[in-house]
């Protein structure tokens, strides 16, 4: 895509880029930095995971507590991702397709969970539902456990992953405007048909992008979940918490074995993200509405 400008640059003037030595130096520095901080840690996880042989690795993964952690992690993601997806679609429809007062404030509020420390995300639910919390006595009287139980973990995960889908969709739908939807409505489509046939196909890759990021964070969240979990083995441990327990027991091979599952999830996330990004870029008119309009 950048070919025409590049050939023009090279032909017209050499000084439009840096001398070759500077280019190599800068590239080397940047790649060195990325290797030190990204590549080496990634390789380290898998080397440590397999350091004591494949059978140790496999044992650590199929151990009942590890499998229980896998299950809880999947449950937390399976509840929080769809909820935040529905929210993201609703919020972006309201924000992108209509003008109303307080819109800027609403967008800021939706972003709030990103600027709150995960630990604070945990403590707010303890203050609400914990034994000494606002609803604690009522919950105890009705024998409902939220803190140090699965519901607390799910709630903390929903809070942490709250903005992901919405923040991808809002700018995308804003850039597209609402002429296409208006045309569909004039031609007799219902609101739901308009959304499904006109809006959704236009934003589907952006939506998928948000879901991928949301899912990665939901499965990987540590701080917030750690505060509300109570660390009960086999019951309230997610995968990241299970990694922590194994590591603190100096069972490094097992800790890195379980961690390698999460690292694989991260690699899968990066691959899916890259594919979706190229789809977004190759749908002209989908994201460039702003500059063209």
């Amino acid at each position, binding site marked *: 895509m950048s070919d025409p400008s590049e050939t023009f640059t090279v032909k017209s003037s050499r000084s439009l880029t840096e001398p070759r030595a500077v280019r190599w130096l800068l590239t080397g520095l940047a790649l060195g930095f990325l290797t030190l901080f990204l590549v080496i840690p990634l390789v380290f996880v898998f080397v440590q995971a397999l350091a004591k042989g494949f059978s140790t690795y496999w044992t650590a993964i199929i151990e009942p507590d590890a499998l229980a952690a896998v299950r809880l992690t999947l449950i937390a993601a399976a509840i929080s991702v769809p*909820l935040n997806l529905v929210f993201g679609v609703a919020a972006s429809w309201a924000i992108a397709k209509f003008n109303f007062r307080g819109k800027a404030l609403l967008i800021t509020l939706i972003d709030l969970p990103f600027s709150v*420390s995960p630990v604070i995300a945990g403590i707010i639910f303890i*203050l609400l539902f914990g034994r000494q919390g606002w609803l604690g006595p009522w919950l105890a009287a009705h024998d409902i456990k939220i803190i140090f139980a699965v519901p607390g973990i799910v709630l903390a995960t929903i809070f942490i992953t709250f903005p992901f889908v919405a923040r991808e969709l809002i700018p995308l739908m804003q850039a597209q405007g*609402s002429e296409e939807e208006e045309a569909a409505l*004039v031609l007799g489509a219902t*609101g739901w048909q308009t959304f499904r046939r006109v809006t959704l196909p236009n934003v589907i890759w952006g939506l998928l992008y948000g879901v991928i990021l949301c899912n990665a964070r939901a499965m990987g969240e540590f701080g917030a979940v750690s505060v509300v979990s109570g660390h009960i083995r086999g019951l309230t441990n997610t995968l990241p918490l299970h990694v922590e327990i194994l590591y603190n027991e100096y069972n490094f091979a097992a800790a890195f074995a379980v961690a390698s599952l999460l690292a694989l999830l*991260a690699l899968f996330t990066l691959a899916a993200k890259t594919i979706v990004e190229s789809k977004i870029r190759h749908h002209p008119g989908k994201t460039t509405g702003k500059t063209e309009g």
Partner: protein
Amino acid sequence: MSSPFKQRSVLPGFGLTLGFTLVYLSLIVLIPLAGLLLKTATLSWDEFFGTLTSPRVLASFRLTFGAALIAALVNAVFGLLVAWVLVRYSFPGKRIADALVDLPFALPTAVAGITLAGLYSPNGWIGRFLDPVGIKVAYTPLGIMVALVFIGLPFVVRTVQPVLEDLDKELEEAATCLGATRLQVFVRVIFPAVLPALLTGFALAYARAIGEYGSVVFIAGNMPMISEITPLLIITKLEQYDYAGATAIATGMLLISFMILLTINLIQRWNRRHIEP
């Protein structure tokens, strides 16, 4: 007739979607956060202010905000460099490098934590070279900075990169034609254009680093007064059932985070005014 609240539109679903948005936002975010502020309001002034100014809390604030600041500065420098190299130069493996930049977003923080602790411990892959020359990284404040640099890495790259891509080459050509050297073009033309994005990325990395917990606790050493970050101190207070203390510190942190968020918004507004006059 448009109401004072909402402009008229032919599209349906405004009430439904906005209603759902507000209810869900309130239930998940606003009411729980309000609970924290309400709890803070029940503390006496001594409980609140006394907790925040106790030596251990102050030491944790200094460490958390200081280490986060240094890490964000490192990220600003190297983030700009990485973004520049990814946009302007071509080299083998560029697409992989580009995709890998987001690893800190995708890798669970606990995994990052145990990995960095393992790498930088005195007999780890990297620590074994640093230990003989007297540089101790793991279980010191330096280790905290390493973890925070890792966590904040994508923010600056991903905010600066699109701005560099959209940068008008004609401006650089004009400056070059008028006799500017390459360095002058960078300092006078390119840098001012990416500065707002750089500041935004810096602020985002800083905000993230302040609240970070998972990647830090494993490498920090967690010694009170020396290498104990504020989020860890909140958890310690919770585990001691000191809810008042935990609440006070959490509210203090929250207020500072909001101020940073406000700053980011101001930078972006200023940025938009400069780009779209």
